[in-house]
C-alpha cells in the first residue's frame, strides 16, 4: 500500500524535515506514526498525498509512483486517499450533512446517490443527531468525526490522519480511535500521526517512531517511548 525508499525532505533554507526514511505498509494495516512536534510526522503524511515533494528517494502509494507523479495526476491519487487533518477543516456556512455531501459533489456523484451516501457516512460516524448543525454548534469530537466521514466519501483505500485527536480530551480521543479501528476492520488501511502516548500504548498496533526526521524504530504492537 505504501512504500518509502530512502526518502528525504529538505525545505528551502536547508531545514531537514525527513532524512533517508524507508519503510513499507501493507494493505489493511493500522499504523501509528509517533514522535515529538517537529519530528517529521506531518511532513511524511504530506509527502504521501503530494502536498510536499520529496527532495530525494522514491515513494509509492496505492500503486502510484508519487515521486514522478505529474501535477495533473495528483487529484487522481488523492481520490484514492482519505485525509484528516488536526484542525477540522469544515465550511462554516454549511451543516454537517452539507459538508459531507460537498465532498461527494466534488467527486462527481449523482444527486440521488449523494443523499443516500451522505446518510450512510453520517450513520457510520454516529452524527445523526448533529447532521443539521453548523460546525460552530458541534463539539471538537463531532467536528473530527464529520471530517472523517468526508474523508471516507471517496471509499479510500488508505486513510491518512494527521493528529486527529490533537485537540480532544481523552474520552473523545478514544471515541475517534475506536471509530478509526472500525473503519480499519472494514478494510481501509490507516496511518495515524499522533503524540498521544495513552492511545498508542493501549491499542497495541504497529508503531513507526520518528525523531528529528529520521525513522528511529518500527515495532509491531509497539509502545510510545
Amino acid at each position, binding site marked *: 500500500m505504501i512504500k518509502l525508499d530512502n526518502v528525504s525532505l529538505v525545505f528551502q533554507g536547508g531545514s531537514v524535515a525527513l532524512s533517508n526514511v524507508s519503510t513499507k505498509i501493507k494493505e489493511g494495516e493500522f499504523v501509528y506514526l509517533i514522535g515529538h512536534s517537529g519530528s517529521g510526522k506531518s511532513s511524511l503524511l504530506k509527502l504521501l498525498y503530494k502536498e510536499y515533494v520529496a527532495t530525494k528517494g522514491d515513494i509509492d502509494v496505492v500503486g502510484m509512483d508519487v515521486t514522478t507523479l505529474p501535477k495533473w495526476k495528483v*487529484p487522481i491519487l*488523492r481520490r484514492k486517499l482519505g485525509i484528516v487533518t488536526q484542525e477540522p477543516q469544515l465550511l462554516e456556512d454549511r451543516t454537517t450533512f452539507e459538508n459531507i455531501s460537498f465532498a461527494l459533489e466534488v467527486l462527481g456523484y449523482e444527486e440521488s446517490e449523494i443523499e443516500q451516501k451522505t446518510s450512510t457516512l453520517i450513520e457510520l460516524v454516529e452524527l445523526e443527531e448533529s447532521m443539521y448543525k453548523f460546525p460552530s454548534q458541534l463539539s471538537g469530537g463531532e467536528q473530527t468525526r464529520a471530517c472523517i466521514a468526508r474523508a471516507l466519501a471517496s471509499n479510500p483505500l488508505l486513510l491518512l490522519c494527521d493528529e486527529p485527536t490533537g485537540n480532544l480530551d481523552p474520552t473523545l480521543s478514544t471515541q475517534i480511535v475506536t471509530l478509526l479501528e472500525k473503519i480499519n476492520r472494514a478494510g481501509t488501511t490507516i496511518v495515524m500521526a499522533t503524540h498521544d502516548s495513552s492511545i498508542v500504548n493501549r491499542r497495541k498496533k504497529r508503531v513507526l517512531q520518528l525523531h528529528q526526521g529520521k525513522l528511529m524504530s518500527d515495532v509491531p504492537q509497539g509502545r510510545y517511548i
Partner: protein
Amino acid sequence: MRRNPLLAIATILAVLVSSFLVFTTLSARAIVENNTSRWQNGVHVVIFLDDRVTSTAHKQLQETLESYSEVRMVEYFSKSEAAEEFKELFSGQQELLDEVDFETLPTSLRVNLNNPSDYQLIIERMEGNAAVREIRASGEAIERLLSLTNTLVFSATTFAVLIGFAAFILIINTLRLTAFARRKEIKIMKTIGASSTYIRLPFIFEAVFESLIGTSIAIGLGWSVIQYSKNSVIAQSIFDISISDSYLINLTLFLILSTLLFGFFASFVGIRKVLND
C-alpha cells in the same frame, strides 16, 4: 460577484469602456475609409478654365493633361453641366438660384489621378497656363483628414488598450479576492481530489460573465451610436455614415470572442496562485 459587488461593477464598467472604444474606433475607421476611398476614386483636381481663351486651347490643355502618366482620366465640364450641378447642389435654396447668373459659371477640367498625392505636381505644371483661371485640389483635404483620422484611431486604440489592461487587472483582483474568501473551500476541494479545472470553473464563469456583460452593453451602445449618427446633421451634409451590417456583425462577433478569451485568460492568471499554494 455577490462577495465583491463594487469590484464586480468596476470590472464590468472597465470592460464596457474598453469594448466601447474598440467598437467605435474600428467602426469609425471603417466609415472614414469608406469616405476617403470614395473621395480618392473621385475628382482630385479641378481646373477652372478662362472663358476668354478659345475652346481649341481648352482642348489642347485636356490633351496635355491626358498625356501625363499620373493622370487616369480628364473630364470636360461645360457651362451647362456646371449649371446643372449647381442647381442640384442648391436645389433647396430657390432664392439663391434665382439670383445666380449661370453664364458666369466657368467651364472646367476635372482630373482623376492614379495616385491622389500627385495633385501638387499637376498644380505646378498648370500654373501660369493662359487657359487656366483657377485650380482647386481635394488631395490636401484628404491627406489632412486621413492624418487626423489616423491620429484619432491611434489615440483611441491606445486608450482602449490601457482601459482593457485596467479591466484585466480588475478582473484578476476580483478573482483573487474571491479566491481568498473561498480559500478554505478550495483547500478542502484540493484535499478531496478535485481537479484544477473543477476548482477553476466557477472563477472562469465569473470572469467571462462580467466581461460579457460589459461587452454586451458596449456593443449595444456602439450600434445605437452608429444608428443615431446615420441620421445626424453630419451624415446629411459632408460625411456619409455608411457601414455595412456584415462589418458590424463581424466586429460584434470578434468582440464577443475576444471577451471570452479575455475572461478565460484573466481567470487563469487570477487564481493560479491560489491553486499552486
